[in-house]
């Protein structure tokens, strides 16, 4: 025992350096490696933390500014559907219904409510308490129920955006209120109405049911939503099949030569081209050369399809490449033709990846503004588009337009529109993840 120990120490002495230093060095390095590992992990964690912080900041800002747009101020008035004042003799006559002076009825109701206000100037202020579009509601009510004509009803009438802003900023303390363009007289009127409990904030259904308007309280996002949907429909139905066909050809049929290499380089370059260039292309080719109508989703969809094609082709090629060649060989080994191999085996296996790429492309297209500015989709369009050839705008352009508008009430609408856009993006991405999971389970 002691012998062997001695032997060991001798051995140790004979090569002191290499024997001890190897283990020491390893140990020393081990501590260093652990520290480096910790730093590395911390770096990743910090990056995620920073990203989350930015996200939280963005969301609180947008939601904080935008949530109030989902509620709208209404004023309660006792409105008389006076046939004479409305100038309606026959309720079935569309023309009479359209021409009737609903705003006059509202004005009369306001005059009755505030009989003390006499001077012309004050009356003008008084009339501006309700929205200039408040009368539309009366028409709808009359159309729905003819017996209303001649009756007197307690109605909630849409308030003007200045009143809306005032009421929303007022809270419980009058001193905090934002008056802006609101005159002293109007403020008095509103305070009286508030004291009577005749002012209320209701859910802003109008925001989701109307197109754009110069009057913030009448402006809605439906036109932009439909415009975006039609545009994306065109984009998807063009770029997805074309992108997949191109990817299949390049991956499975094209021989590797200088020409295909050239195409490949160009596709990669196109993916990095600034999107406004595609807008210029659309302007030059589709509008100037082919004389296509401006501001329509068909045109926007074409331009965005060109823009998303490289993304879809690149991701589809990657998905096709990832299909194990053994599966293709197996199919070929029992006599499947090339097309059968591709349709029966390659495409189903590559589909989740292709769809993910396509939906990322669609999300990119949904948020794209610049190319659409070039082809006139930045126009002020009030009507909700009913098809791909109706002039329309899209969500990001609507946000851009509203952000440019001076009325304070558009600030909250801008944020609300951003929330709607983000909502769409989240829905699309969730759908992409769900679809991917579902298709992959078939393995």
């Amino acid at each position, binding site marked *: 025992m002691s012998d062997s120990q001695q032997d060991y120490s001798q051995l140790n002495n004979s090569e002191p350096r290499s024997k001890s230093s190897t283990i020491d060095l390893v140990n020393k390095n081990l501590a260093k490696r652990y520290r480096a590992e910790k730093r590395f992990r911390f770096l990743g964690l910090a990056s995620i933390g920073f990203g989350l912080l930015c996200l939280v900041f963005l969301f609180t800002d947008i939601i904080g500014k935008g949530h109030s747009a989902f509620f709208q101020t209404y004023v309660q008035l006792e409105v008389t559907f006076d046939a004479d004042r409305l100038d309606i003799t026959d309720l079935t006559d569309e023309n009479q219904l359209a021409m009737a002076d609903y705003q006059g009825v509202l004005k009369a109701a306001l005059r009755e409510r505030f009989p003390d206000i006499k001077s012309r100037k004050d009356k003008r202020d008084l009339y501006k308490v309700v929205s200039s579009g408040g009368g539309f509601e009366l028409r709808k009510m009359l159309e729905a129920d003819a017996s209303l004509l001649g009756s007197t009803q307690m109605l909630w009438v849409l308030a003007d955006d200045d009143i809306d802003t005032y009421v929303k900023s007022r809270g419980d303390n009058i001193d905090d209120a934002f008056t802006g363009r609101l005159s002293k007289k109007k403020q008095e009127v509103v305070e009286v109405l508030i004291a009577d409990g005749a002012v209320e904030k209701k859910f802003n259904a109008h925001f989701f049911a109307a197109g754009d308007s110069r009057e913030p309280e009448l402006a809605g996002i439906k036109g932009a939503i439909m415009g975006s949907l039609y545009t994306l429909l065109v984009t998807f139905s063009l770029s997805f099949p074309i992108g997949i066909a191109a990817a299949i050809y390049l991956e499975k049929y094209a021989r590797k030569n200088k020409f295909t290499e050239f195409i490949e380089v160009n596709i990669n370059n196109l993916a990095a081209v600034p999107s406004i260039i595609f807008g210029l292309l659309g302007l030059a080719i589709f509008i100037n050369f082919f004389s296509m109508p401006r501001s329509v989703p068909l045109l926007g969809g074409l331009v965005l399809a060109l823009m998303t094609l490289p993304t879809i082709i690149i991701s589809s090629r990657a998905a096709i490449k990832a299909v194990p060649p053994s599966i293709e060989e197996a199919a070929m080994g029992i006599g499947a033709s090339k097309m059968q191999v591709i349709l029966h085996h390659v495409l189903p296996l590559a589909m989740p990846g292709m769809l993910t790429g396509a939906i990322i492309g669609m999300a990119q297209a949904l948020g794209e503004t610049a190319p659409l500015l070039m082809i006139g989709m930045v126009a002020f369009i009030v009507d909700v588009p009913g098809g791909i050839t109706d002039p329309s705008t899209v969500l990001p352009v609507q946000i851009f337009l509203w952000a440019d508008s001076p009325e304070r009430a558009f600030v909250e609408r801008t944020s609300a529109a951003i929330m709607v856009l983000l909502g769409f993006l989240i829905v699309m991405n969730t759908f992409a993840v769900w679809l991917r999971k579902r298709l992959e389970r*078939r393995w």
Partner: protein
Amino acid sequence: MIEQPISGPTVGHPLVDNAKMSMRDVNVFYGDKQAIFGVDLDIAENQVIAMIGPSGCGKSTFLRSLNRMNDTIDICRVEGTLKLDGQDIYDPKLDVVPLRARVGMVFQKPNPFPKSIYDNVAYGARIHGLVSRRTELDEIVETSLQKAGLWNEVKDRLDEPGTGLSGGQQQRLCIARTIAVSPEVILMDEPCSALDPIATAKIEELIAELSENYTIAIVTHSMQQAARVSHRTAYFHLGKLVEVNETEKVFTNPDHELTEAYITGRFG
């Protein structure tokens, strides 16, 4: 390793009277590199021929040119005459799809489709339009799985994914898939190299049974396997066919010294 020039013709008996496939002066190139040098070989009907040889000797390349699987490789070029029942399989007018239906292939790694067991076997019959009714298809699936010795193990779960089976079962599923289109020749490229000994034994048994009705060419790294399953054995070396003889003769008394060196384990 014995480095000696391999010259002269193939020794033994590369040619037979009842040839199912006959290859004459076959040269295969990958770009500028030649992989197969002037091979003459007959594959006898309803027999198993084993192709053995050290790695990189070209036996797999040769096998893959028998049903034109090499067509998928752009740079690959095959010269010479390769005939199936007297018909040139590299005839430009010949359609490769029916050829591959007649000459099926089983690969090194089990590669079932990510579909159900039933669909795996039924796929070939479907694409070739062999059946018109569902019952006929059921019958094909059942007989193919029975021939592959898999029926009893999977008959209750035909709609489960083929990829969920064990490695050996997957390989037998692939064999069932191949014989479902009733090929005349089955090419097997190291079918057992990814399997454990028990699964290997089952596949070998299966090959012996199949050889009654099918012509089989099998590439293998295992000399024991070649000895067990094959009637004739072809020894490839550096792209040349060195010797072809009855299996028993090759493993007991080879004609060529390179063959002897290989089977006695002096290289390989």
